[in-house]
């Protein structure tokens, strides 16, 4: 049977608990870094007059689905969290949509059901900008 070694035990407990907290913090940071969703429309990239697919399309992690509908002179963009994991990540948070060509830079807010909406101008450059864009969640908000 071991004899008591309070100093070593107290130290080791401090270390393992601090290490566990650090690991959790690192996972949180990885989560924050992952708070970005990339969308690529490869088929449309070669098209002269890019038209977003009517059935919508997904980000590379398949967590968000974007649907675009033309309403008169506007292009209505709906973003929907797909599944519980995605909902947990985006519900109630602000998002920023930025296209690779920087034509689009729009902020919006996801509701508690993981839905967000943005109205854009329906113009050829806007349609083209949707070929490649990302949605980033606001880092300052609690995830």
């Amino acid at each position, binding site marked *: 049977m071991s004899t*008591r070694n309070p100093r070593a035990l107290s*130290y080791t407990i401090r*270390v393992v608990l601090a*290490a*566990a907290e650090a*690991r*959790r*913090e690192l996972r949180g940071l990885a989560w924050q870094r992952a708070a970005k969703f990339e969308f690529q429309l490869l088929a449309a990239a070669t098209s002269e007059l890019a038209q977003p697919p009517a059935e919508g399309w997904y980000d590379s992690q398949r967590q968000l689905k974007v649907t675009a509908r033309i309403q008169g002179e506007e292009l209505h963009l709906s973003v929907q969290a797909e599944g519980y994991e995605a909902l947990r990540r985006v519900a109630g948070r602000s998002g920023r949509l930025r296209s690779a060509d920087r034509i689009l830079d729009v902020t919006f807010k996801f509701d508690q059901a993981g839905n967000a909406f943005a109205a854009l101008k329906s113009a050829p450059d806007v349609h083209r900008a949707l070929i490649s864009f990302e949605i980033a969640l606001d880092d300052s908000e609690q995830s």
Partner: protein
Amino acid sequence: MRIEPGALYVRLIGLLAAGYAESLLKHPWYASRMDAEEAAGRYFDATLGRKLLLTGRVPLSVAHRLFAALCARCAGALEKSTLKRRVGAARAANDFGVLGTIRRCLSKLSREPSPGSASPTLLSRLGPIVLAARDDEVSVPEEMAIWDAIACSPSPIMALPPGEPFNRFCSIVIDCIRTANRPVLELLSLGRPLCPFDWLDELSIQQVRSLKSFLRHLKSQDVPDTLENWREALKQNPVPGFKAVEALWRSPIGTALRNGGIYPSVALEQAMELVEPENGIELFLVQQEYQDQVRLLRADEVIGAEEQYLLIEVYAGAALEELAERAPIRALLRGRNLTIDELIEDIRERVDHWQQGTAS
């Protein structure tokens, strides 16, 4: 796993800005003089970037220990490497392979000992510090910053499995951070609004500690800053370098101490865990020993059965959020209406209290 010092630096600064903005980067004692970004840089220089002094009792610093631990995580030539002092000049190392890379990186570090360093004495008594590998060795500077240890370590390194190897490495990192933070925290704990970055190079650690006793005396007497009150306090709490009270009163540090007001230093100390760093590597328990000791802790009724389970699982690498969902811990948290963080804090406090009780 690759260590990219540049990426790591950016991540560290980002982490400071994200998690410690209020307590360190926008600290009220210097927030008006610098923005958070500059404070992050100066904090880095004052802590991880600061060369650690050796003393007669500490012939290798925690930065050396971190460097050795990182080298031992490099597969191949360095896997069984050791860092030690040995009499005689370091053997000439070749310039190839990982040892050559380390040698080139270490050669860029200054070898000039800091004032007050015990390095010259240690060097003549115990010999230089060398990283001894299978068939080669590299001379290592006497004084290293923790950041030097990281930046000069080999890459890639092996990922550590959860449990003992990971925890043992963490114990070294925790010792490093505590040692690196200590001078800044000592200055902040004086309870006067000094910007630590201004005074780190001006005051020795002994001076800071003596000033702390001196200021505590004034506070305990509840008297204002007057030359007479300082004279009385200095008589009972001498401060190295200031024999006469007039010299302390008129000195830059004396002027700074008088001109800023008094703050509750005790609360700050507690918040910042200002405790003496320990030589963790000697205290850290291997898994079986740890489990036995935790059982004894349970036998002493310091912790309950569920907490014993939690401590053993955490050592083995279980994630806190996952543990909180396991039935025994979930029931405990519900029963005591605690979060997992509150439970951990409570365990820490009980263990500290128990340790202090057994020591007295």
